[in-house]
């Protein structure tokens, strides 16, 4: 591992492109996404299903499966380039330096093995520990994620846990080797509303205690507002807006983000009725020229239909919209996100 400065980002994704090879040519699923996450920072990634947010997470963990492939850009973890690592090198890195949390805790655990066995095998894969040491660590981890009576529950099978408890186990598994970064893909979507907040709070506390950065992928702005430091909004495989959570929630720059905010029932907003964004996201085979959002955008003008906007600095964040050009000077896509919280140093 290279020496790195505390302020350099844990994760630096630069101009990422992902394509799917089909018989009828390559299909662009991710088109030039750049984002950074600082140590200990929680970055929320939002967007409709199909916007490419989970795909970005999958690519970072190196679990992208055929026919999908990274066709351009770089992914750096603590300064080390990881998108071109061999399968085995990537495997060593997963679980050790990047943890992952999946959407459905009910299906994330192997039903045939005890929770303890799954924890211990993960710990021992990454850390030089004896079985007894690993077991001790597993119990500590279970206690840390708020599982009551971890000494007895460690020997139980996944089906003996409720959904919320299972997600705690999944989080413990993700944190087994103290990774610097956790990719949490819709970690609360499959859970009861009453449990969601507990899990988010717990995740937030754990990451603060361990200094773990989190990429929190979700379509739920409520979760973002609750947990994230910054937010990245994705639409049709591109980043449309990035910024500190408070700013984005309060005064979104991109019309799509504004639409997203308006469509969410939240105490942060005083709205009489929820608005919906007209239409639906285009299929990857039929992305319109210019700004991908223009057919649905209430403010679209001729330039939006002809020219594609890149991220431009706006307020404390950045948005890919021609409307913000009047307020700010254009900035390069990669630079615009290197931003408020992170001082980039190459």
């Amino acid at each position, binding site marked *: 591992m290279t020496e790195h400065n505390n302020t350099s980002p844990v994760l630096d994704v630069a101009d990422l492109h992902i394509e*799917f090879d*089909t*018989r*009828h040519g390559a*299909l662009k*699923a991710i088109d030039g996404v750049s984002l950074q996450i600082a140590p200990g920072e929680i970055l929320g990634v939002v967007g409709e*299903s*199909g*916007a*490419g*947010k*989970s*795909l970005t*997470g*999958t690519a970072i963990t190196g679990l992208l*499966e055929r*026919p*999908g492939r990274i066709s351009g850009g770089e992914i750096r973890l603590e300064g080390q380039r990881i998108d071109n690592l061999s399968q085995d090198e990537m495997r060593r890195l997963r679980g050790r330096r990047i943890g992952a949390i999946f959407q459905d805790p009910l299906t994330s655990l192997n039903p045939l093995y005890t929770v303890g066995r799954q924890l211990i095998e993960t710990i021992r894969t990454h850390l030089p520990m004896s079985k007894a040491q690993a077991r001790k660590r597993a119990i500590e981890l279970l206690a840390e994620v708020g599982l009551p009576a971890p000494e007895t529950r460690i020997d139980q099978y996944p089906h003996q846990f409720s959904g919320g408890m299972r997600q705690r186990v999944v989080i413990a598994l993700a944190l087994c080797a103290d990774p610097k970064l956790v990719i949490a*893909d819709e970690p609360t979507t499959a859970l009861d509303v009453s449990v969601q907040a507990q899990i988010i709070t717990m995740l937030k506390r754990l990451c603060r205690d361990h200094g773990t950065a989190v990429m929190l992928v979700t379509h739920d702005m409520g979760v973002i507002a609750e947990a994230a430091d910054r937010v990245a909004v994705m639409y049709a*495989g591109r980043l449309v807006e990035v910024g500190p959570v408070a700013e984005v929630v309060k005064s979104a720059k991109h019309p799509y983000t504004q639409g997203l905010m308006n469509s969410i029932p939240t105490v942060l907003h005083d709205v009489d009725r929820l608005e919906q964004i007209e239409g639906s996201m285009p*299929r*990857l*085979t039929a992305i319109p020229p210019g700004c991908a959002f223009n057919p649905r955008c209430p403010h679209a003008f001729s330039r939006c239909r002809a020219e594609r906007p890149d991220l431009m600095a706006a307020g404390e964040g950045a948005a890919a919209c021609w409307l913000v050009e009047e307020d700010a000077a254009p900035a390069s896509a990669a630079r615009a996100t290197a931003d408020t919280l992170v001082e980039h140093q190459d």
Partner: protein
Amino acid sequence: MSTVTQRLNDDWRRFIDSDLFYSFRRSPITIVAFVVVVTLILAAILAPWIAPHDPFDVSTLSLLNSELPPAWVAGGDPAFLLGTDGQGRDVLSALLYGARISILVGLASVAFAMTLGVCLGLLAAYVGGTVDALIMRIADVMISFPPILVALLINGVARGVLPPEMQHDAVIFVLILAIGLTTWVQYARTVRGSTLVEKNREYVLAARVIGLRSRAIMAKHILPNVIGPILVVATVNLAIAILIEAALSFLGVGMPPTEPSLGTLIRIGNEFLFSGVWWVVIFPSAVLVLLVLSVNLLGDWLRDALNPKLR
């Protein structure tokens, strides 16, 4: 799984499915299988006209011609392309007639099983309750026993019940009955499943509410829905039926040597095995395997083509 990959997977899969008919990678095999099946069926139908000899006309048989090897082997006679058996019968002609009977029994037992299965399936779904439970229980028991055993038992019982003088003429019907009774279950399950789904569709309920004859409407909707799956089951079962018939005939409880099917021919050939007369057994075996393999290939392709969700 991430929704994007999901959607892309679906798209991707749809491409494959729609390309199925045209796929150059798969089609050659399917086309070959299709050609083989059609050729064999045509040859079987036309056997009386295209066979070089009449294998059942005892007067034309000559022991002088017995156990002649195929024409291309030293000692072969060009008049008997694939050689002759121990009674001087032309193997090629016997093959053509044998395939005729094998295919006939196969098709007839599939038709019988299909009729029986479809009727029982519809009955179970329409009437429901005890009748449904009874039929499906019987189906469960039937399917848990190996088909060859069930067919053997039915065959044995039928031959025990029939008076001896009728047995010779009835044997082909006994075979069809035994194979049909063994293989109706899949049709019944398929039809019952589809019917139950349709039965609870809104338009049927709506029709019932306003007093229309829901059954007539259902029948109109069920038929197009089940025809695909039934066709797949029928194709796969044609291969199974031909195999069961061949097995029964090989075991000596099927078609008699006077009216041989492919299985009977293999049984006859098996007796010549140790005298080194391999052609009497190899050719019927090869035709049987070719026929079953081709039908299986067609069945595989049909399943993929008609039901994109199954792989």
